[in-house]
């Protein structure tokens, strides 16, 4: 079997990504056709920058989703004789049904770089949006009362937020993954506290809205506590009675660390927005008809802060992606075998001067995803400002 030429490599990669292209075209076709009816999401398709960003992000989401169809080899499998082989090298000892080449070459442990990059996107897209979402829940639940009540509560919460922000992030991560600290159970307790916030958030949301209709309220609260509690037991304590939901201990630590450092920034954004929006007349109108403070915060203020929050959410997923990369690069949290982009870049770094192909693809992937998220945020911001 002959090694592939550059053009052939390119062609094969495009072909491997076929499900992604089909998905992208379908999503764009449907979205553009219905763009007048879908509000802010539809307006995104009026902005070239937003569309490029959206396309990059959707590309990676679909790649992660169809990963099994795209991957040519098992990302952890080492094939002897493929160590540091150049892109396009035929796989040694490939049988008839196997894929015949290492499209982007092999890394220093003779694993397929292409498959590892695809598998890495899964890890990033599993952790980054979810961790950002949790950080938002924590930030919102604490930021709203701080901004709305002001005074001593605000002073205390803002002080704590500043304290966390002032602490060097990398040092914090090092501390959290140190075996001695893990043994004390600190990350677990932190997870137990941080993961409680989404449940509190939802319960308060339903209570404040539907307390005048107890039946509806009871239904929503019961559902939230049941489903939320189940997920909570599974991921925070790894004690899901049915055993379906669980989270690996090391991923949990990464997750907790990311949520912990992101939530103070979210807290500050929400606090500022709340302080601005609470002076509006519709907030006064709600007060004069005797609404409770949580109704005002969650149903009058929060929906009207959504514009800047959505933009920040996109940007923050980007930061989190970089943060995950940094963690992987320093070998913090995840296993050394893990195909996540940060670890892969770190592994490739050592031979960068001789072989650049194992380190470059994950680095470019990381860059394109973060760029996509930033462009998407820009597009959203631009479109939400015009009417």
């Amino acid at each position, binding site marked *: 079997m002959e090694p592939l030429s550059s053009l052939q490599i390119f062609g094969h990669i495009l072909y491997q990504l076929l499900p992604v292209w089909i998905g992208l075209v379908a999503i764009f076709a449907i979205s553009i056709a219905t763009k007048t009816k879908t509000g802010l999401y539809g307006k995104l398709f009026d902005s070239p920058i937003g569309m490029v960003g959206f396309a990059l992000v959707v590309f990676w989401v679909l790649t992660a989703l169809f990963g099994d169809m795209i991957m040519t080899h098992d990302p952890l499998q080492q094939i002897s004789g493929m160590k540091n082989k150049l892109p396009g090298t035929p796989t040694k000892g490939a049988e008839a049904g196997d894929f015949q080449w290492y499209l982007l070459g092999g890394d220093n442990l003779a694993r397929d770089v292409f498959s590892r990059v695809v598998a890495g996107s899964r890890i990033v897209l599993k952790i980054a949006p979810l961790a950002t979402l949790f950080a938002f829940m924590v930030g919102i639940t604490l930021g709203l009362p701080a901004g709305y009540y002001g005074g001593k509560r605000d002073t205390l919460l803002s002080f704590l937020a500043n304290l966390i922000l002032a602490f060097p992030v990398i040092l914090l991560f090092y501390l959290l993954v140190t075996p001695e600290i893990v043994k004390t159970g600190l990350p677990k307790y932190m997870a137990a506290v941080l993961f409680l916030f989404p449940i509190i958030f939802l319960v308060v949301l339903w209570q404040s809205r539907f307390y005048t209709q107890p039946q509806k309220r009871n239904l929503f609260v019961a559902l939230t506590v049941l489903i939320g509690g189940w997920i909570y037991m599974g991921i925070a304590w790894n004690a899901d009675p049915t055993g379906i939901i669980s989270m690996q201990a090391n991923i949990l630590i990464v997750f907790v660390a990311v949520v912990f450092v992101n939530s103070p920034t979210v807290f500050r954004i929400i606090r500022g927005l709340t302080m601005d929006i609470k002076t*509006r*007349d519709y907030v006064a109108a709600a007060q*004069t008809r005797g609404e409770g403070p949580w109704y005002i915060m969650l149903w009058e203020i929060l929906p009207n802060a959504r514009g800047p929050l959505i933009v920040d959410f996109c940007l923050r997923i980007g930061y989190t992606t970089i943060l995950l990369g940094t963690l992987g690069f320093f070998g913090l949290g995840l296993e050394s075998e893990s195909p996540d982009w940060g670890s892969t870049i770190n592994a490739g770094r050592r031979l960068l001067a001789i072989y650049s192909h194992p380190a470059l693809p994950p680095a470019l992937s990381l860059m394109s995803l973060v760029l996509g998220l930033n462009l998407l945020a820009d597009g959203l911001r631009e479109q939400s400002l015009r009417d």
Partner: protein
Amino acid sequence: MTKQPYDGPILEINQLSISFFTRMFEIPAVMDFSVTVMPGEAVGLVGESGCGKSTVALGVMQDLGVNGECVSGSIKFKGRELIGMPEEELRELRGSEIAMIYQEPMASLNPAMKIGKQLMEVPMIHEGMSKEDAYAMALEIVESVRLPDPERMMNSFPHQLSGGQQQRIVIAMALMSKPSLLILDEPTTALDVTVEAGIVDLVKDLGKKYGTSMLFISHNLGLILETCDRLCVMYSGEAVETGSIKDVFDKMRHPYTQALFRSIPLPGADKNEHPLVAIPGNFPLPHERPRGCNFGPRCNYYKEGLCNAHNIKMAPIKGDTRHDSRCMRFESIDWDEPIEAGANTAKTEVGDVVLKVDNLKKYYEVAANAIFGGGEKRVVKANETISFEARESETLAIVGESGCGKSTLAKVLMGLETATDGSVELLGKYVEDVSIEERTTNTVSSVQMVFQNPFDTLNPAMTVGSQIKRALEIFGVGKNEAEREDRMLKLLDLVKLPRAFATRMPRQLSGGQKQRVGIARAFAGAAQIVVADEPVSALDVSVQAAVTDLLMEIQRENKTTLLFISHDLSIVRYLSDRVMVMYLGHVVEMGSTDAIFSPPYHPYTEALLSAVPIADTSIVKKHVVLEGDIPSAMDPPSGCPFQTRCNYKGQVKGGLCEQEVPPMRTLKGGHEIKCHLDDKTLNTMEPVIKQVAKEKTTA
């Protein structure tokens, strides 16, 4: 640059059309607009928001931004064409030959530069004047805009001055270059009435003194009457009528102008006998303009096939000089036809006392150091010894300028704040120290509020229907969702909005419609007392009348007590039964509407009455202008709160005004007044507003 003398018209705008271009389509903002400003002449541009009056001003400045463009026509300044003039030449004209004054004074001044430096910059840049000369000139101009202590002013930063002082500085800056044309875009809208009166007075005098031509943009017809020689009425991007003040005010020849005058409360209007006539319908959006006459769909004289046949041109009116109208039928309409008598409604009888406020005080403590507390505390006396009562189906107007404590009073009534001292008896219950969380649903739903800013009163993230339904839910109206839905639709009927609006988002509604939804929401729990905080002041005049009438109608039906907070005395006179005038936390005068609007007055009320511009040429006003600004509530003057600005202070012996707060005195007819002036002086006061016989107009 040297300024050449020029005799012809200062500004000649001829058939100007300005459009804004979006990615999709072109939005015409101004169409076929012509106006001429002669030397020393003041021309008013009047119209509702969105009619294109500010766009004209920006067109003259050639500052339309990237999207705007003059599509056709010409703008000639002293004979020189401005459209297409190179940037450099324009820069020399702007600020030197043409100066502009905007609505927000704070936004026109650089907050990081001292006033003096900002003023001196103008002649130093345009005329290359030396620093010393520029300083001397700035000092002279600051003095001529009647600011106290000019040298201190020159040495302060903009934020150290009050709004009125800032606007004077902006005017001074515009005058520094001795411009030939001064464009004023709503220069007093952000200011209080008594401060506004001072600025208007100043502008008029300066116009005479320097011979500057002025283009005065305003939505307020009364203000135009006081300041201008000629005016141009605009509607939906077109000039519909132009002429001298006298011609347009006394013998208008366009249905829109007529409708506009009928919808503003003039001293003769009365809510029962001569109700205001609102203009039906809504202002058309720029891309939804009808064919033919833009005002057609809202016009009483509309004739199918004539008014919508083709575009209508301005036509001169025979017998008048420079008086034009854009109407096909102005010659066939009988302009002297009396206003169709609206439904005369009987005056409703006032019932029992529902609200009794006695000796109410509200102080705020402001810590000097907000972060760590402690430090020295300052007390803001927002309300001082307020006593009044309000009866069922009565309208009590609370009048005063910003900082007089009227909003604090509303907050205490609503329970958003609790009183420092005194009592508030609401429907037989004492509620002065019951905050809203502790009030029963019944109490909360019986006192509701209508807010000032229509763009802020509804939650932008919820549909109109669900907002009203939420209020019903909170007030415990209706047993289930279906009943509340039904009640919500009935409330929409009550405020005369189509039922389809229930599913709309607030941003799809116009200002007037939003305010109606706000009213519907306030009446959701069958409110007995409604506090209306300037409910119409942010609306356009043509919409104001409709919303005011709606409020009156609902009040009549439900026997609601209306506490109408306003600074606009014309509308107060039109709709209220009793009036309470507040100044710096004190009630300075209270009585029936007639008693307040006729002498004897409290000196503050007198100034307030004189300050309100009235759009009627047959009204002669006594000229009272107050000096200075309203003192801060943080540091109120000793004695009478009004003594720092009072024109009558000299007539009270022994400096009593500076030593003690005058007691509330009851004059005849339950008219209360808080003043040291003796009865004799009070009785010699003349009425501020006098109606002289209207000249017979020839049709």
